[in-house]
């Protein structure tokens, strides 16, 4: 489709125009990290961190979602929750975070359609930003993706030092950008070549590699392998890896009420917690940390590829970055690949 450029100094004007008509989520600086938040002015945005701590999944699949409201008691009633029709823009989403949605779609738009996710998915424009300088634990290339991939976004920006290349990827992206034509000029052949160079450098900057060949099949025969016990020994059982994961999507549902009003809420859950599989009978099918550590890997690299034909990992590296005991998913999968059965 069309390729445009925008001068770096014009970027803020453009984004501020977008903010007038849309709810814009963008990385905002916190204490030595960034997070996606709603921004009211371009000046709030901070692009100096590669990946916001909580991935962009939280915008479409909120950590806490009110499903419906009710008044408790025998004369109580249920009130449905209106789903907002507001237009969303996710600005500066990285390719790994954008890929999230193609992995989550089968879950939330498959057999049972989740109206909240669906509405937001339909209403959101993903404006991607190529990674010029990947992090130490980035490995999107292991999945055949690129830090400057056009695959999962509507519009892709690439910082070409002084200006941004703006690649229009989808019809929705094209329709969206039509309102802002005045900010852009056509991209030249040199601009596209510059992007290629930037992309090549970024790919070279990714030093870690996950070897995925045959892993899904092999996992089928490794259910009792010592590797799960080894990693479970050092796992402290927190939920950080699953909460910062762009593809983990398990949730819990709870009724939270006072005497007069209540709500059924859906909240992110984590398979790292024993409570996650704790039956009302008292039985727990995943009683040990080993079962839980194994499940996280199997869900992403065995069950998900089997059921949905796609690996449930985007290679963002957050679970490695944030793990306090160095449980390293790249190492685990590579060890699986090398294990002699």
């Amino acid at each position: 489709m069309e390729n445009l450029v925008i001068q770096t100094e014009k970027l803020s004007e453009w984004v501020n125009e977008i903010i007038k008509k849309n709810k814009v989520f963008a990385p905002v600086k916190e204490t030595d990290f960034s997070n996606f938040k709603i921004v009211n002015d371009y000046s709030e945005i901070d692009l100096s961190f590669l990946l916001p701590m909580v991935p962009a999944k939280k915008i479409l699949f909120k950590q806490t979602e009110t499903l419906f409201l009710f008044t408790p008691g025998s004369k109580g009633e249920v009130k449905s929750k209106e789903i907002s029709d507001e237009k969303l823009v996710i600005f500066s989403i990285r390719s790994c975070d954008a890929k999230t949605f193609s992995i989550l779609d089968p879950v939330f738009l498959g057999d049972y359609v989740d109206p909240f996710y669906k509405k937001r998915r339909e209403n959101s424009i993903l404006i991607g930003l190529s990674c010029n300088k990947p992090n130490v634990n980035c490995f999107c290339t292991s999945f055949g993706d690129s830090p400057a991939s056009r695959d999962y976004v509507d519009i892709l920006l690439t910082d070409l030092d002084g200006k941004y290349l703006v690649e229009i990827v989808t019809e929705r992206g094209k329709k969206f950008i039509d309102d802002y034509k005045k900010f852009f000029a056509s991209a030249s052949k040199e601009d596209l070549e510059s992007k290629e160079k930037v992309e090549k450098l970024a790919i070279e900057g990714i030093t870690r590699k996950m070897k995925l060949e045959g892993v899904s099949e092999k996992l089928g025969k490794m259910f009792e392998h010592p590797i799960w016990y080894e990693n479970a020994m050092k796992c402290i059982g927190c939920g950080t890896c699953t909460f910062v994961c762009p593809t983990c999507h398990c949730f819990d549902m709870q009724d939270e009420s006072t005497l007069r009003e209540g709500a059924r809420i859906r909240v992110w859950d984590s398979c790292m917690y024993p409570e996650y599989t704790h039956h009302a009978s008292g039985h727990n099918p995943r009683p040990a940390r080993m079962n839980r550590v194994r499940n996280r890997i199997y869900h992403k690299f065995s069950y998900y590829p089997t059921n949905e034909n796609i690996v449930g990992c985007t290679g963002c590296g957050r679970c490695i970055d944030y793990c306090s005991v160095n449980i390293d998913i790249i190492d685990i999968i590579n060890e699986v690949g090398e294990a002699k059965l």
Partner: protein
Amino acid sequence: MVDQKQLIKTAKEIVSREDVKYIVGYKQGTYGFVTSPAFAYTPEDVESFIYNPLCKKNLAVYPILEEKLPLKRGEEEDKRKIGLVVKGCDSRALVQIIQEKGLVREDLVIIGIPCKGVIDLKKIEKRFPNQTEVVDVEENDNSEYIIKIGDTVHTIPKEELLSEVCKSCEFPNPPLYDFLMGEEVEVREKEVYSGLRGLDETPIEERWAYWEKHFQNCIRCYACREACPLCYCKTCMADMLDPQWIRRSVNLSENTAWNIMRAFHLAGRCISCGECESVCPANIPLMELNKKLEKDVKEMFKYTAGLDTEEKTLFGTFNPDDPNEFIM
């Protein structure tokens, strides 16, 4: 510096004993400055053990995390001891847990390390971003860290990378150990914990805004709880459903409730290892809360946690002279 050879030799001897199940120490991590807990079951496993200023993790959490799964028919409980490598604060954690009868002294074999302070991983990663290759760090006699990255040697003043909690550490030597690696280190005149000023001196509105900003970033992953050796309640109040002390909704109100309750439940128990803060993905300055409570406990009850296994716990005792101004 701790003599790594001595550490490995001692650990090998311990793990060879018939009454020892395994020993937990540190090994090189998979990238950059990261170290990893290492579980050694045999003397060969011990070969991978390291000790350097990057070994921050409080390993005292592991005997607490030991899983006691239901035994199969005919199976007997493995009652062998667990070996542990501990620094001053880690050892204090063990003392505190033993005081509370959460662990039995005889179930542990403890290698104590006189500690000169450890590096804050977040600080060193900020200083040397994107470090893939494994890095070697040493401390010299001049209070500097010698960091070898590839062919380049960086010499950095210790203060710049040292964990904030270590700067105000009063107990660098383990109070409880079976084997001590090297001589006890000298306890220097300590500075007051930097984060305390915020809670003691800033006006209440500013203070509230500060904590609001931090608590709204909490994702309730409970890394602070799981990493803490003193957070070992069988059922945490945050997990209870009936009564539900804290709702599962992740919002400022519930996050505040969680973080405040966590801190209060550690009053008179926290041993200032700083583990909660260093594992927090949202960089919430949890040690500021812990240190404030530590200070109050010290001033009001003249009590310091984790020094003597025979001592009674703060909340297990009372004195008619205890201050009670805070009781309405």
